[in-house]
């Protein structure tokens, strides 16, 4: 996933001090330490969240999964379930934690269903604040939620009242990335219409979703723009491999054709994955510099420290 950031040669020419090599050193240390990233996934049951996560990270985060029936769901409240997996690619280690929120939006009365989620996010901030203020700061574990994929139903006409309320309550606590899953249920026209509707409603309600930073000098400006223009990403996930033109690819087999997960003409899956992995660093920074700092100043103001 991650390419070396800089490459530069040592030189003994006059005037050259050598600290331009610092980023390299930072990079090497980080690689040795490994990266941590916490991704939260929120949305009604049955929107394809688990399948998408498995497809994104090419792993099965949910083996032996039990899906409760409707009668059971009536009694259930929102749960928080965190699964951690270590992924390594080209010597770079990523400790990925996926925080799932089963029960969200299932109940007949969903008024309180995001209180649990808010508490969880705040608790991680609280813990970090505590560790940061403590004596032993060498091994602070960062369990703060760096990014929240919010799943919008492809079956509606836009955002639902619950979607609006959730995003308004959480856009000041976490980076929200809206995702339209099960996008193969939409024709291209319907997809565009839905995306536009969602963006209009987000702006109408003053919801602040995660903004991609401007392209760096060494990044492809046009690609960045294209990516930005695709938000919210309309994606398809799949746990199955299908043979298409002699190759085995991730997809869904219908009587009327095959939907390919990694085909950019079929859906935005590749865009979403690329965006996520190339912005892990930025997502962490924004969490630290914006959301966490907001929490911290509120907290310290309250306790009058």
């Amino acid at each position: 996933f991650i390419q070396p950031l800089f490459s530069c040669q040592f030189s003994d020419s006059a005037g050259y001090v050598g600290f331009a090599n610092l980023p390299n050193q930072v990079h090497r240390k980080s690689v040795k330490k490994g990266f941590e990233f916490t991704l939260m996934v929120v949305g009604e049951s049955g929107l394809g969240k688990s399948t998408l996560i498995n497809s994104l990270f090419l792993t099965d985060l949910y083996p032996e999964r039990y899906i409760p029936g409707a009668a059971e769901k009536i009694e259930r409240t929102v749960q928080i379930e965190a699964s951690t997996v270590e992924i390594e690619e080209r010597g770079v280690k990523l400790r990925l934690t996926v925080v799932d929120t089963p029960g969200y939006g299932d109940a007949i009365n969903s008024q309180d269903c995001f209180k649990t989620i808010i508490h969880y996010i705040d608790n991680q901030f609280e813990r970090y604040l505590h560790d940061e203020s403590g004596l032993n700061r060498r091994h602070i574990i960062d369990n703060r939620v760096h990014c929240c994929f919010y799943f919008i139903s492809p079956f509606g006409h836009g955002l639902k009242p619950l979607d609006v309320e959730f995003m308004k309550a959480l856009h000041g606590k976490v980076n929200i990335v809206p995702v339209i899953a099960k996008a193969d249920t939409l024709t291209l026209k319907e997809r565009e219409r839905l995306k536009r509707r969602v963006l209009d409603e987000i702006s109408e309600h003053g919801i602040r979703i995660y903004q991609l930073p401007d392209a760096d000098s060494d990044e492809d400006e046009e690609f960045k723009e294209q990516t930005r223009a695709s938000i919210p990403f309309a994606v398809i996930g799949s746990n199955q491999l299908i043979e298409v033109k002699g190759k085995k690819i991730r997809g869904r087999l219908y009587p009327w054709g095959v939907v390919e997960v990694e085909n950019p003409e079929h859906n935005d899956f590749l865009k979403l994955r690329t965006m996520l992995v190339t912005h892990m660093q930025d997502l962490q920074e924004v969490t630290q510099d914006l959301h966490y700092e907001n929490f911290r100043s509120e907290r310290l103001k309250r306790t009058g420290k």
Partner: protein
Amino acid sequence: PCTGPVESKNEAAMSEMVPEPRQKPVVPMKPMGINTSLLGYIGIDTIIEQMRKKTMKTGFDFNIMVVGQSGLGKSTLVNTLFKSQVSRKSSGWNREEKIPKTVEIKAIGHVIEEGGVKMKLTVIDTPGFGDQINNENCWEPIEKYINEQYEKFLKEEVNIARKKRIPDTRVHCCLYFISPTGHSLRPLDLEFMKHLSKVVNIIPVIAKADTMTLEEKTEFKQRVRKELEVNGIEFYPQKEFDEDLEDKTENDKIRQESMPFAVVGSDKEYQVNGKRVLGRKTPWGIIEVENLNHCEFALLRDFVIRTHLQDLKEVTHNIHYETYRAKRLNDNGGLPPMTVETEENHESNL
């Protein structure tokens, strides 16, 4: 005396309106009048033709209600079912309107005609159902509406000077749209069907079924059927109302294998293999609505319109309405209901 051509014409005409005749009479049918002097033939069977002619002249009412969360394709499906723009969305309503804050009941009537038969079709939409954050009791306005139609009918029935043909606004069929999550029913689905299956014929359908592969569809249907059974929800056709073995066999198959129908709707036509078909065009293929390999829309259509339309009305009248009537009479001490309004406007047989 020829029997062939006329006989088949009768049968063909009959099958459009009423279910196929139960059994062929043992005595060979004769087409001409009742006054034939051949032994054994009376001509009672011609009543079917008489009924058919009568129905064609008077036409009939059919009231279908659609219930489900916003965006599940209810309006499109109803338009596809009746091959006309009969839904609320087509009658000048803006497709992009806001979700109402409470459940509304909107009834739109159309007269459609086919083969000389006139149907006054009323589509009752329920926008706002299941769309709020708090959906508690959101089925109550719907139950209230259904009972109000029974009440209207009852009031007309108990009148001394009652109309020859009581206008029938009772809901004959309620299509309940299940979201194609692939997991299970939602708590709201259970609650709605538990409450309403006792007052109206509920036909559950899985909406936007083009989101599921064949395997996912089969699994999901099995799960839903099981959940409905475990929770004691009797959808139409209800087991207890099967009239005879023939009914039971036919309906068993529908109940245990076909339902809930996994459907896809569309009002757009595309060219496939030289034919114009209703469908949805995607980058990976065209989904044909009336192709049984793609979805079960044709099964739903045949079921509701071509085979069980009359039965839906009969069960509504003979079972649901009678249940309501009996309760009302009981509550009233065995007497027909009477309100101030009734006293003023009509004389009742109290």
